[in-house]
């Protein structure tokens, strides 16, 4: 099991998830720092992300859109609050209008990523997600993105199994 721990705190509106990988911190950082790799894991197969702007320096922006099964393309962005490659990334993840300006009608989340070497060629990644308000949590999860996600769970398993078979014959 890659995910080693999950702590959810409804009152504080946070979730902390820890995962371990057979890779170096530098390699795990690349999953975030290389936009082509980020695209391959950020969105589910039925709602893939396309990253159009990617600057992981402090104050920098990452811009991306997702493409849904109906052809809908919601835009979103990160504002990078902290960046210490390959160990720490803090970003605000929000939704954007068509011209990429922040859409303040929709809630954002703060993500705090820690990447640490735990020896033996393994790396622990900790993700702490914080929702600004309960309504934000509710609204974000009620959006179409998650519908696509939920519907795709069965397919994801199949796709991952194929990918693994291809990666480790």
């Amino acid at each position, binding site marked *: 099991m890659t995910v080693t721990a999950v702590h*959810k705190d409804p009152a504080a509106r946070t979730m902390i998830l820890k995962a371990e990988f057979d890779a170096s911190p530098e*390699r795990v950082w690349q999953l975030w720092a290389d936009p082509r790799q980020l695209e391959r894991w*950020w969105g589910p197969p039925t709602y893939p992300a396309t990253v159009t702007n990617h600057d992981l320096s402090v104050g920098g922006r990452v811009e991306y859109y997702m493409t849904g099964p109906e052809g809908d393309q919601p835009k979103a962005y990160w504002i990078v609050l902290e960046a210490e490659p390959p160990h720490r990334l803090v970003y605000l993840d929000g939704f954007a209008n068509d011209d990429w300006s922040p859409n303040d009608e929709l809630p954002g989340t703060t993500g705090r990523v820690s990447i640490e070497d735990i020896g033996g060629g393994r790396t622990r*990644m900790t993700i702490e997600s914080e929702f600004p308000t309960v309504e934000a949590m509710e609204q974000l999860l009620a959006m179409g993105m998650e*519908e696509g996600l939920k519907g795709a769970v069965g397919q*994801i398993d199949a796709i991952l199994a194929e*990918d*693994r078979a291809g*990666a480790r014959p």
Partner: protein
Amino acid sequence: MQIAPPDFDRLFGALSDATRRDIVRRAIDGGEGVAELAGHYSMSFAAVQKHVAILERAGLITKERVGRRKVVRTNLEALRVARRLLDQYEQLWRDRVERMTTLLAESGKETDR
């Protein structure tokens, strides 16, 4: 997708206090009335009564008549609703981590590390 009742903030607000969370835990068995519950805490009966009222308004507990007594009982369904949103978010990140693992395995093979 209907995932939240209209009084969602009230629900989380009610759960944001340690004493109230403790009351919710104790009332799962539903054997005690407000007076008995109050005996577990160093605060006044009135203060505990206030906490119970907040939990009741949030739908987290109900008062049920058992014989001549009124007992406080936790509404387990309301508790489940509170966790469901975070459960969905957990699944989103679990799926992302799975995809990351797949990517790392692929690149490990390519570079023969």
